[in-house]
């Protein structure tokens, strides 16, 4: 029950954030986020409905940012009523809700007291305490009240919270992993007990069922003797609990399905073992019914062995299936439990659930960073490999983003939280991976179609086989017909078919997440393996997206460092991004910058100023010519740098040409490697950019791309993707999720290069958490490996059933005299689905084939 509450309300809470502030005349203003607005008519509907309420003075609904701004009189209308009104007309303005267990709440008056105390707390919309579960459900506005206030309210009523219960991370994955794990573990142990019991009975039963094969037994209980009949009757008695207890899940499973007029694996096994059992009962109770005493055989062994093997198969399958979701369990395990928060000037350790946005969190060396935020003080190196797959620690300084669940290595720092609970990058990743694992690959539609007809078809085939063997089969016909019926029912394995795709998908998508690649759906996974063209956006995808100093050229007699130092000192005053690149470049060379006087910017041309008594100029050719500086000696170098796609700038010192500094958007270190790897995978790589042809070509040459689409306007990117698709290609597009969103959507697979904590925002098919192109290569490799695995599974499962069933029906008998034993059929069936799961698990050992850069 608990879970439902958190699931439903988290969904609502994600759509709601509230800020209430008092305005003049006792009027209050509140901004409510409204979910579920789908068209232009929605704001009007909402405005009308809310505006009509008594106490509401004004309301404005904005469709774009999904907010309802409401002015209201708190004396006449409560926030709760506003929220209810919005919900009533079909939109979701939920609140966060939480179930808090309360210690020693025993009387009904306690209930009232707790509820009252909570309802009096501003920001709490509803409170309902329940004696039966000793807990109170609180609906609250997350921005207006925090857990501490709620706790204080409960304590003020004289009660205590039993234990910190809210677990946002669990809510984020929609339900806890633990109960599931405990459940499957319990199931495994029960099945194993059933298996041991069944096999303990099966072994003696098997020996005594074939007395003719063992001379001693044959003499002791000859055919047709009473001894034999009595021994067999006893065996039947022993086999009864095997069928009814060890095999109980088959009967309940069959019965539950039959009530829905559906059939499954349990149906087949139940019918199979029942047929064998009933035949044996008849053989023992009334052997006279058979024309020949040799016919009065028993098949207890079939019942026992089939039950034992299939139960063992089920148990092993549970174990193996548990491993398929290992990746997500690892992710869930990453979530830290506590955070050291600075509140009222004191450091306190809080459960991570109680950290709220804008808290300042202190992180020491070796600590896990509890939630997402921005560094405000201190610096350190942070190991983000668990989230991004990036193996090198990342330097963090004030202003940098930190991601929850990553590991602080060297220094201490403080950060201000920006995302907590289910909004953190980790929680979003977990939610996305779970959703993706639950989605279906297109290839599975075929399987789904077959699955609906599979079991009844096998039942029909079993009956037909029985009839045919009875009509034209060799004597003893009844025995052969029965064996064939039982074998056919037992060998068919719908599970192997059903498991083939989902298990591989679960492992494959989990594997992606481990490498910092979020594959959003089975659809994306399947399409990725077919890509034959990949378009890379230049800025921010192939390149870093920020300019950096690349070259310093100096006139004769001057030092490189000297020219750079003066240029950088001059640029320190400007706020131009190119200037920033020069300053950073100088700092990297360890140069100490000087102060500038008389700084002046010449818009569009450059900057000038006086440093250490010398007049310095930095800018383009026009600036130099205007000031009468002879730059012809540097023109050749300028031309060369420009042709490399860089931006060179002239430097002049005291009226003389001093040199050039060039900045450029630099290529990410592994872009070249990644592009080479893509080409080796047989994929054509195309670069797309808004830059001019020359710059674009220069970068393309550097990274080894031949086809360049330059001077593409931002809104033309999607059209370029479409053009390539019209060439008959399956196109993947890699870009940042914001500017390139239309192009990503147009592509068959859109790869968004994400950085930091925004992983879940953009709507792409694949999100690469680490901002490197290598992720695209790994994503394609994973999709190819996964789909290959799926195909292996499907071929195996289809092949097994299409070969196994005819053989079981006795198709080989007329030609080779071969008839399958039901015991072998049971073993084959039990292990075919296990094989499928095991094969899917092989994907866990997937390693990118690309040579490490």
């Amino acid at each position, binding site marked *: 029950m608990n879970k439902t509450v958190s699931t439903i309300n988290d969904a609502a809470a994600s759509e709601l954030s509230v800020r209430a502030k008092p305005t003049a005349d006792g009027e209050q203003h509140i901004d409510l986020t409204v979910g579920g607005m789908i068209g232009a008519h929605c704001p009007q509907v909402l405005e009308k409905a809310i505006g009509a309420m008594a106490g509401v003075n004004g309301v404005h609904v904005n469709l774009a940012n999904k907010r309802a701004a409401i002015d209201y009189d708190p004396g006449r209308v409560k926030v709760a009523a506003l929220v209810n009104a919005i919900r009533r007309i079909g939109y979701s303005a939920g609140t966060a809700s939480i179930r808090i267990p309360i210690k020693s709440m025993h009387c009904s008056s306690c209930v009232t007291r707790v509820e009252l105390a909570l309802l009096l707390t501003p920001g709490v919309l509803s409170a309902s305490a329940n004696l039966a579960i000793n807990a109170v459900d609180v609906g609250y506005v997350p921005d207006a009240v925090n857990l501490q206030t709620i706790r204080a309210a409960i304590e003020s009523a004289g009660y205590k919270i039993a234990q910190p219960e809210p677990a946002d991370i669990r809510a984020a994955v929609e339900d806890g992993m633990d109960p599931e794990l405990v459940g499957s573990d319990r199931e495994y142990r029960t099945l194993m007990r059933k298996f041991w019991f069944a096999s303990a009975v099966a072994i003696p039963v098997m020996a005594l069922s074939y007395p003719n094969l063992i001379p001693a037994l044959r003499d002791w209980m000859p055919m047709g003797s009473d001894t034999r009949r009595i021994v067999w009757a006893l065996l039947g008695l022993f086999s009864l609990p095997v069928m009814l207890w060890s095999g109980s899940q088959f009967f309940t499973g069959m019965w539950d399905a039959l009530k829905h007029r559906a059939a499954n694996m349990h149906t087949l096994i139940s019918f199979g073992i029942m047929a064998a059992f009933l035949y044996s009962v008849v053989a023992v109770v009334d052997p006279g019914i058979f024309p020949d005493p040799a016919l009065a055989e028993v098949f207890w062994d079939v019942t026992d062995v089939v039950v034992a093997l299939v139960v063992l198969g089920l148990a092993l399958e549970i174990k193996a299936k548990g491993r398929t979701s290992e990746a997500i369990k690892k992710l869930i395990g990453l979530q830290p439990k506590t955070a050291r928060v600075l509140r009222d000037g004191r450091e306190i350790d809080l459960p991570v659930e109680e950290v709220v946005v804008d808290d300042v969190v202190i992180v020491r060396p070796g600590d896990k960073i509890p939630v997402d935020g921005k560094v405000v003080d201190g610096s350190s190196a942070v190991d983000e490999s668990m989230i991004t797959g990036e193996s090198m620690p990342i330097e963090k300084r004030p202003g940098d983003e930190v991601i929850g669940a990553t590991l602080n290595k060297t220094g201490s720092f403080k950060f201000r939280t920006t995302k907590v609970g289910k909004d953190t990058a980790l929680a979003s990743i977990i939610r996305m991976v779970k959703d993706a694992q639950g989605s279906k690959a297109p290839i599975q539609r075929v399987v789904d179609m077959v699955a609906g007809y599979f079991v009844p078809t096998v039942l*029909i085939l079993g009956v037909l086989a029985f009839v045919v063997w009875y009509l034209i089969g060799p004597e003893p016909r009844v025995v052969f017909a029965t064996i064939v019926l039982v074998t056919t029912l037992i060998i068919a394995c719908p599970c192997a078919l059903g498991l083939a795709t989902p298990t591989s998908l679960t492992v494959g998508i989990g594997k992606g997440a481990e490498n910092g690649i979020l594959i959003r759906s089975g659809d994306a996974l399947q399409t990725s393996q077919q890509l034959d063209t990949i378009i890379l956006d230049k800025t921010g995808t192939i390149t870093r997206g920020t300019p950096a100093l690349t070259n310093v050229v100096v006139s004769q007699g001057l030092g490189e460092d000297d020219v750079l130092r003066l240029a950088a000192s001059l640029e320190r005053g400007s706020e131009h991004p190119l200037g920033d690149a020069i300053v950073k470049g100088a700092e990297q060379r360890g140069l100490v910058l000087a102060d500038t006087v008389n700084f002046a910017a010449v818009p569009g041309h450059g900057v000038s100023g006086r440093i250490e008594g010398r007049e310095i100029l930095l800018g383009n050719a026009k600036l130099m010519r205007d000031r009468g500086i002879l730059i012809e000696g540097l023109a050749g170098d300028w031309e060369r740098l420009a042709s490399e796609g860089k931006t060179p700038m002239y430097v002049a010192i005291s009226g003389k040409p001093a040199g050039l500094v060039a900045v450029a958007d630099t290529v990410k270190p592994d872009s070249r490697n990644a592009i080479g790897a893509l080409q080796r995978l047989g994929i054509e790589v195309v670069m797309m950019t808004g830059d001019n042809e020359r710059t674009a070509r220069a970068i393309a040459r550097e990274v080894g791309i031949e086809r360049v689409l330059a001077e593409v306007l931002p809104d033309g990117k999607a059209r370029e993707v479409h053009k390539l698709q019209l060439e008959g290609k399956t196109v993947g597009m890699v870009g940042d999720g914001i500017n390139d969103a239309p192009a990503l959507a147009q592509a068959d697979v859109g790869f968004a290069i994400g950085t930091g904590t925004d992983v879940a925002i953009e709507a792409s098919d694949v999100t690469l958490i680490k901002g490197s192109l290598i992720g695209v290569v790994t994503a394609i490799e994973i999709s190819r490996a996964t789909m290959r695995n799926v195909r292996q599974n499907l071929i195996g499962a289809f092949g097994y059933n299409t070969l196994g069933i005819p053989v079981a029906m006795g198709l080989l008998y007329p030609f080779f005299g071969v008839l399958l034993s039901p015991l072998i059929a049971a073993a084959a069936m039990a292990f075919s689905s296990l094989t499928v799961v095991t094969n899917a698990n092989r994907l866990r050992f997937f390693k990118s084939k690309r040579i490490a850069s």
Partner: protein
Amino acid sequence: MTPDRWIVLTIGLLLVAFIAWFFWLKHTKGVHATTTSGGYQEAMILVKGGYTPDTIIVSRGRPVRLSFRREETASCSAKVVFEHFGKSADLPTGELVAVEFMPEEPGEYGFACPMGMFRGRLIVE
């Protein structure tokens, strides 16, 4: 053909006809979701050998909340997938799990366990 063969043949064919009729020619009447004060169209679905009810009728354009309660341990039904809506939910035994989504277009949408052995239909009107 001996009489016993005739009998077996007849019973066999009847059985085949029965199986085909029983499993394939079923028609379930849909259950209408009830609309709650919260504006959701809600329905409870029991997961046990199948979905009960297995056909839910809702109207378009209003949020739907289907609450699943799984009362069995068979691993197949441990998850329910709404393929069209891109939603899925794990269903731990004995717990009520809600799946919410917004049906925009009228039509018939399936929901099923990942292996497709359990199937239900959602009819959007």
